[in-house]
């Protein structure tokens, strides 16, 4: 199996606090990884470093074998990374369809000159319709994204992430704020994404769903990895239980 994402001794401090302290991990093609940990464990910080929204103090981030540590978020997306935000960020003044077409046009928008020389959107529109169908947003295409309820916006985020044709998607709490029915529908879609051969890294508080769908679990605590492997084995690990009992989340996991 080839590595899609590699982290080599990635670390960052905020003021005096070690938010992420030397994480070295490899995610292989086809993996379905859950990244969990108690509040303040450094999950979101690590995701932001992988996405290029934060620059680490030391260490390297590699995508598909090439070092992207110094690259911008947009360059990483063009290199095969897709991400959804914890707080949805659609283009509210564009239609739902345009939001996805824009993502599907990543081949044209890589640079201004290329973008200036291309006009036709037909192919991208067809792909966008298909993707909107696969996430269950058929019928909302012509509406402004700003008018959609949260549950549908979360699906729109996923649709846009798929439209950039990624090798790996980082999903930052894609279930947060959804009711039970919406959440399980969203999980189905994520599993469908994985079945298409896209590597998935999922950050999620909903441990029940994480345990159900992930094939591999990475547990962070105080910025370091304290568990990595098969979800049930990892959760049986005393160090992991200790971390979770300390924050009172085990109860939630078993509930």
């Amino acid at each position, binding site marked *: 199996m080839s590595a899609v994402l590699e982290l080599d001794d990635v670390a960052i401090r905020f003021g005096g606090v070690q938010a992420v302290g030397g994480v070295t991990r490899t995610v292989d093609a086809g993996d379905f990884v859950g990244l969990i940990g108690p509040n303040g464990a450094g999950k979101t910080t690590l995701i932001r470093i992988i*996405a290029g*929204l934060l620059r680490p103090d030391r260490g390297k981030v590699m995508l598909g074998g090439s070092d992207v540590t110094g690259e*911008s*978020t*947009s*360059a990483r*997306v*063009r290199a095969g990374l*897709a*991400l959804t*935000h914890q707080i949805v*960020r*659609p*283009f*509210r*003044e*564009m239609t739902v369809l*345009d939001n996805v*077409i*824009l*993502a599907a*046009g*990543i081949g*044209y*928008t*890589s*640079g*201004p*000159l*290329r*973008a*200036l*020389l*291309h*006009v036709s*959107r037909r192919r991208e529109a067809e792909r966008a319709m298909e993707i909107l169908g696969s996430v269950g947003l058929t019928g909302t295409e012509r509406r402004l994204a700003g008018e959609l309820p949260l549950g549908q916006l979360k699906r729109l985020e996923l649709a*846009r*992430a798929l439209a*950039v044709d990624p090798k790996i998607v980082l999903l930052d709490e894609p279930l947060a704020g959804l009711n039970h029915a919406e959440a399980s529908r969203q999980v189905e879609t994520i599993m469908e994404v994985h079945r298409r051969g896209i590597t998935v890294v999922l950050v999620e508080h909903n441990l029940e769903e994480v345990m159900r769908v992930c094939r591999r679990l990475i547990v962070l605590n105080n910025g370091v990895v304290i568990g990595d492997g098969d979800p049930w084995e990892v959760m049986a690990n005393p160090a992991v239980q200790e971390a979770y009992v300390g924050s009172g989340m085990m109860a939630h996991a078993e509930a």
Partner: protein
Amino acid sequence: MSAYTISIVSIIGINVILAVSLNMISGFCGQISLGHGAFFGAGAYAAALAMVATASVPLALLAGVVAGSVLGILVGFASLRVRSDFLAVSTIGVNFLFVGFVRKQSWLGGEMGISGIPPTGFGASGNMIMILLLACATVVFSLYVSRSWMGFAFRAVGEDEQAAATLGIGAGAYKLAAFGIGTALAGLAGALYAFFTQFITVDAFDFILSVMLMAMVVIGGIGSTWGVVAAAVGLTLLPEAIRFVNDYRLLVFGGMLVLVIRLAPGGLAALVHNLFARTRKA
């Protein structure tokens, strides 16, 4: 055509180029620039110097475009570093700096400006036709840009840079492109203005002009090429048609700016759009 008509039509053409080019920066790409007069002025001065030195129209046009876009790309780099409200202040600053700098330069004629710019040789109507052709070309180009993937990406960058980045769109390159294109066209307008008047002083490029141009963009409907063209034509003719408006130009423009934003933030374009939507429903 009377000399008066020719001069009015020429000024309309120049204002259309200026307003449409500002709309590319502020309307398409969402980068509020309140210093468009500086790029217009840089183009006018460069073209004037080139005309005085070589008397070649193509060289003067090129000098105008280059001067406008070089200054514009410099300011574009500033836009990469500062937040949007800082950018508005910085561009006001660029306008004041430009005026304050030129006023003190003896090689640019200082307060007196540059007079005796050689004629293009096309005559007043020839100049007017050249201005109109270039204004039409600018409008066509603007319409094309807004339909292209560039215009699409501009809208994304203008609305939310971070969200654009997650779709692989690097905001920096697009902002520079918007400033580069918009200010090159402002420089072009500057060269045409130098041909038209054959005499320039720095007061023609002050901050008030930049506000007038922003008024055209906002009143026409920010982002809408046709709305902005209509506003540029209308707001140029208005003071000519109505004497009261000519005497109280700033009062009227300022008042319209306030009223349009307060009552119809989408400008003319949105009003027309809504009207059509309503008649269709009815």
